[in-house]
């Protein structure tokens, strides 16, 4: 329980010194942890850190609705911090008005989330533990490895269970668009369950291709337990491989797919000469 005490101490200090006007965290008063904005040091004793809870979107809304000089602290994990950075990059949140109190996850938590980076940039709380490689985990292997046809069957089986509750979108800390393409009949046919699940899930997945911070919010939120976060892994890997880019790690760096090849060269075209004639993918 030392981490919790550390956390409480830090938050208390920040509030007492009036560095922050409020700190967003989990409060457990009647043995039911709920997100809560601690504004006075006294309240802080009810601060808890478990279970994992994603604050990014909540923080965004609090900052938006609060007066302009309100500075908010957030007790959050690595994934949440990355989400906050992505929101800042996309002009949804004012950098100057938030303060992150970072907390490193435990090994168990990391394994539960298949998290490759279970710690914030600066871990104020807890000990940095090594991330896990999703491809090593048995649960993920079945979805990521094997023949194309197997994966196809596997995923159809999974996605067929979708009830189109939009929970994955709503829980995602990055999805902020109103209106959302997924509600547009043009892209996702209305009222057709399940026929249009391909476009629903793939469009959702691709929109997050270069912003997903792998927090696993979608997976946790899915009422029928589809491991949606696994859709992102391959794309995140290819971004890391080709541009050494990972969403949410560098506030100063925009997504590499938005710049041309002179700025962010990408591996395919480093073969001698430009691709000088039409090429079929399986031969490139």
């Amino acid at each position, binding site marked *: 329980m030392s981490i919790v005490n550390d956390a409480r101490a830090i938050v208390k200090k920040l509030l007492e010194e009036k560095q922050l006007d409020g700190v967003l965290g989990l409060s457990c008063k009647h043995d039911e942890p709920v997100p809560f904005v601690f504004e006075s040091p006294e309240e802080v004793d009810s601060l808890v850190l478990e279970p994992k809870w994603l604050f990014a979107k909540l923080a965004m809304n609090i900052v938006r609705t609060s007066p302009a000089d309100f500075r908010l602290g957030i007790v959050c994990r690595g994934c949440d911090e990355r989400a906050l950075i992505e929101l800042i990059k996309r002009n949804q949140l004012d950098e100057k008005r938030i303060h992150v109190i970072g907390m490193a996850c435990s090994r168990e938590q990391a394994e539960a989330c298949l998290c490759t980076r279970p710690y914030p940039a600066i871990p104020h709380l807890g000990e940095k533990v090594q991330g896990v490689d999703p491809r090593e985990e048995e649960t993920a292997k079945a979805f990521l490895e094997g023949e194309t046809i197997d994966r196809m069957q596997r995923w159809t089986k999974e996605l067929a269970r979708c009830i189109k509750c939009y929970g994955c979108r709503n829980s995602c800390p990055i999805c902020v668009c109103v209106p959302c393409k997924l509600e547009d009949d043009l892209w996702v046919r209305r009222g057709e369950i399940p026929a249009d699940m391909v476009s629903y899930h793939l469009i959702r997945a691709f929109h997050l291709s270069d912003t997903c911070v792998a927090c696993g919010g979608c997976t946790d939120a899915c009422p029928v337990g589809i491991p949606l976060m696994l859709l992102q892994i391959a794309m995140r890997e290819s971004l890391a491989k080709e541009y050494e880019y990972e969403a949410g790690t560098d506030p100063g760096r925009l997504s590499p797919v938005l710049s*041309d090849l002179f700025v962010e060269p990408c591996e395919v075209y480093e073969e001698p000469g430009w691709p000088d004639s039409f090429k079929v993918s399986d031969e490139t």
Partner: protein
Amino acid sequence: MMKDLKQDSNGVKSEAGNTPRVIVFACKWCGLIGADAAGRKHAQLPAGFRVIPVECASRIEADAVIRAFSSGIDGVIVLGCHLGGCRFNAANHRTAKKLKLLYPLLETVGIDSKRFLLSFGTAHEHHQFEDLINRFYQGLQRLAPMDAWSGSYLSEMGQR
């Protein structure tokens, strides 16, 4: 009236057998001209592809490609200009990088990456265009039709 239109075309298709259905997004300044040159040469190509001309390949959003797959299209081709020769200040560089990200996603969910082709070539080389279409079709012939995806999907629903 749309109905008998449909029936008719279905009739045609059933006779024609299941030729893969392909959408070609062609940049007006290179891909489309290649297609045009192929036409002028009376090249014989499989009839199952439909060309959608766009101003620049960079206008193609991945959503459109995904949408095509979800409505049972077997393959999608995006044709842009040479990466040296885009008329819009190398806008097609962005396409190249953006749509390349689609390959891992499609592979993950088991849509074979042979179904999606991102390609940059010069305008006037009709034989390149023929070559492209034919090879792409050869690639598709080896795969099950895309309906399999939604098909097995529906059967899953049935079992549920």
